[in-house]
């Protein structure tokens, strides 16, 4: 049984279809990336898994149970945690407060001190800035905070929406390295990225979305070598 399974998912905004018949499986322990052009439905997919959007048809199962009718906070309680595109940290709250907000579920709250220590070990910069308002952090630090806040919820599946967006090369490398470390520590990762090359290089498997449909599935290496992927997504 896959950790997460989408089957024949249709999602629309009014009359506008965003996902059509999307099926996808995330296996426990892997890093899986979803790549595709802007507007291909990647963010919609993550928002549907999180319960922010309702599918018209099809279902989402996590650990074998349907989650597509659950409100978001119940989805988080199951262990599915979403780091949204553009970080979305609370700018006027301190770094520590942002992190604490990540551990609001009953199960996560019990491990708050523990989790905080783990996040600070992963991102020493956040410890240095624990008392500082999140809005004063640089873009890279805000991304670290957004990931740290998600880890505070003790995810089984961590979903990241364009974590490299707008970041300097050195920080992008650091963020990808951290995602790999999080995965090695046992968290399954579902990664959505425009940075196609680095995302596929990090992932065991990848899916390519076009116009709301899955058009290719393969290992990261297979997709990096695929002629269509090279032309459409790697600029080669």
């Amino acid at each position, binding site marked *: 049984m896959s950790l997460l399974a989408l089957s024949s998912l249709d999602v629309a905004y009014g009359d506008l279809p965003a996902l059509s018949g999307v099926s996808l499986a995330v296996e426990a322990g892997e890093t899986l990336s979803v790549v595709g052009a802007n507007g291909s439905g990647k963010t919609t997919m993550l928002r549907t898994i999180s319960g922010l959007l309702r599918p018209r048809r099809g279902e989402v199962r996590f650990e074998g149970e349907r989650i597509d009718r659950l409100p978001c906070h119940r989805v988080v309680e199951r262990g599915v945690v979403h780091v949204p595109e553009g970080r979305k940290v609370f700018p006027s709250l301190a770094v520590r407060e942002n992190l604490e907000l990540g551990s609001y579920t009953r199960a996560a709250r019990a491990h708050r001190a523990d989790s905080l220590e783990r996040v600070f070990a992963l991102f020493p910069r956040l410890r240095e800035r624990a008392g500082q308002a999140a809005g004063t952090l640089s873009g890279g630090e805000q991304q670290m905070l957004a990931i740290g806040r998600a880890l505070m919820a003790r995810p089984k599946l961590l979903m990241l929406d364009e974590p490299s967006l707008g970041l*300097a090369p*050195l920080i992008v490398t650091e963020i990808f390295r951290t995602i790999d470390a999080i995965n090695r520590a046992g968290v399954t990762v579902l990664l959505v990225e425009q940075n196609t090359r680095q995302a596929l290089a990090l992932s065991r498997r990848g899916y390519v979305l076009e116009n709301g449909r899955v058009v290719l599935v393969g290992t990261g290496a297979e997709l990096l070598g695929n002629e269509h992927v090279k*032309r459409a997504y790697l600029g080669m």
Partner: protein
Amino acid sequence: MLLEVDGLTKRFGGLSAVSGFSLGVEAGEIVGLIGPNGAGKTTVFHLLSGFHAPTAGAIRFKGVSVVGARPHEICRRGLARTFQIVQPFVNLTALENVMVGAFNRTDDPAAARARAGELLEFVGLGARRDTPARALTLPDRKRLEMARGLATGPELLLLDEVMSGLNPTEIEAIIGLIRRIHAHGIALLIIEHVMRAIMALSQRIVVLHHGEKIAEGRPADVARDARVIEAYLGAEP
């Protein structure tokens, strides 16, 4: 020299966002401005375009100081900018958005409409002219942002991360568009994190770190500079 910046400094309370920054841009040149997040790049754009007043320093455009001038006055003199987070008027069509820029040079709606139409064709949005901006995809919004800047009739266009959020193939298309803008004789100062693009486009690159210039030179030299590698590029993964 089209743009001359000398000793530019901006402090927010106790924080120095930009310190003693100097820069020159020649007519028709493409200059890249790079640096870590929080280095002060966008603050430099805010200062050049009159959105912030400098704490100290000089900014001259075509030999005339623009310090203290309002953003629309600076734009009228021929210095236009785009925004990192694209800011279209979401309920206006693509054409109407670009017309807003064109009114910088004309009061005649027919002339503004004609100019906006040409520029939409130029950036590759001809088929989207009547689409409301809210319905455009991100790559199309980036093109719209550039068309609107061009419509103001700039001699120098500041581009703030027009490639962020785009995939490598979409980036190639934007590189082509920037080359076509340059071919029309417009100078460009470009903030960008996409190294492949900035290295290919820029004749000269300036590196900002903690609000100060730490390197300046030809792309190949800057890419080898030890301080730039340490502060910004990192070792090849």
